[in-house]
């Protein structure tokens, strides 16, 4: 059973999460005219047998998008982090 240690909610069953695919894929700039870049963004995947950085969203929890580093052969999870960095905390007024 996959269990993902959500930084907000703690360890939760992966059924609470939605899979978002390979997190190493970077979307080209909106005005990028390079066909190859768009082709690779849409279709090409490295698909490793081993460590894989991937997106998961905690849809039945905090709804945060996470980046999970998981071994695709064993499902062991090396790290979980928020996909976007939290905004810097404002100092107390």
């Amino acid at each position, binding site marked *: *059973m*996959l269990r993902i240690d959500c930084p907000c909610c703690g360890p939760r*069953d*992966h*059924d609470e999460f939605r*899979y978002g*695919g*390979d997190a190493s894929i970077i979307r080209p700039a909106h005005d990028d005219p390079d066909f190859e870049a768009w*082709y*690779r963004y*849409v*279709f*090409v*995947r*490295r*698909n*490793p*047998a081993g460590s*894989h950085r*991937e997106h998961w969203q905690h849809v039945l929890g905090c709804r945060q998008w996470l980046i999970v580093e998981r071994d*695709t*052969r*064993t*499902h062991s999870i090396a790290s979980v982090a928020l996909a976007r960095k939290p905004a810097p905390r404002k100092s107390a007024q």
Partner: protein
Amino acid sequence: MRHYSALSILRNGLAGHRHWQRAWRAPEPKRSYDVIIVGGGGHGLATAFYLAENHGIRNVAVLEKGYVGGGNVGRNTTIVRSNYLLDGNTQFYEFSMKLWEGLTHALNFNVMFSQRGQIVTAHSADQLDSFSHRANVMRLNGIDADILSRDDVRHLVPYLDYSETARFPIHGAILQGRAGTARHDAVAWGYARAADGHGVDIIQNCEVTGFLHEGERIVGVETAKGLIAAGKVGLAVAGHTSVLGHKAGLELPIESHVLQAFVTEPLKPMVDQVVAYGADHFYVSQSDKGGLVFGGNLDGYNSYAQRGNLGVVREVAEAAIALMPCISRVRLLRHWGGVMDMTPDASPIICPTPVDGLYLNGGWCYGGFKATPASGWCFAHTIATGRPHPLNAAFSLDRFRTGRTLDEAGVGPFAWLQ
């Protein structure tokens, strides 16, 4: 290779079954071959057989990392059908069906092909309309298809949920009478034996770990049993295409996902056809031993583990009892997972590659078993001639670049396609 016949059974039976020849040899690899097929599953073995049978290329080796029949050819739900809608798929799978119909004789090995028919239930008037559309396309291509009313379905498969409280009431169904099942291990063994009979070397426990290059061209493989030279190399390793493709320098539009399948404790004969649920993802047939063999959806994340998670077991079981409440108390005997190459359009890839000397057969998603004969036939043609057969011309690797995808999702008669 000795011919199997009623007489051979009688003769060997009288001799106490002590003199059966082994079904295929276990040779050590030669230093070089005209063609090396990587992957001793159904597709790889079929390719080797048709290379010898159709093209006279007999100096061929099939390299299998485990044992013949230990991969996806032994991990499917054994369903064979040809009810595809889109040009390219329709003709390819029907050609495969025709090969299935003669396969036991062609291989001199009983693959137990049973054309028991496949029924896909429709759960709204719209869905039944879309099935009619598909049936028309199939018939225009010379493929049998029938549209069933609710009463027809009830007559054929009375054990489904026809009650007032059914979550998705059955409006009708599409039936392909020539669809059915085959004994999947026998398919692997039959092709292995027939290919071996043509002189093909089948080498088990021989994992391919890399490729030999001469300039840009691939001229052989590195294996667990040493270096082996080859005029041409064909990959038929669906599930692990990315792993070997990456070593050969290919960039591929493939993700590996795990698909689970299930078998229940044996029951008396009940499910006479293959039945698929039109309102969810569930398909079932009954094996000769009595177990209900069924499957559902992918687990839904990249995986090379040949096992799945319990959430999908629950989902499939829910779909099963929504359609067939009578099996709610039946116990599961076992379940297992297979690793699938998933392509973006869920159609396969059979083509020459940009790497000289390398040919690719993969991307079978969850529909590879039924394609085994045609896949081998077309891949053998592609390797022998260097060009795709008309039947696999649509399954090119560059269709994603050129926008000619075959977006049928591989699943059968569903309506979202047009």
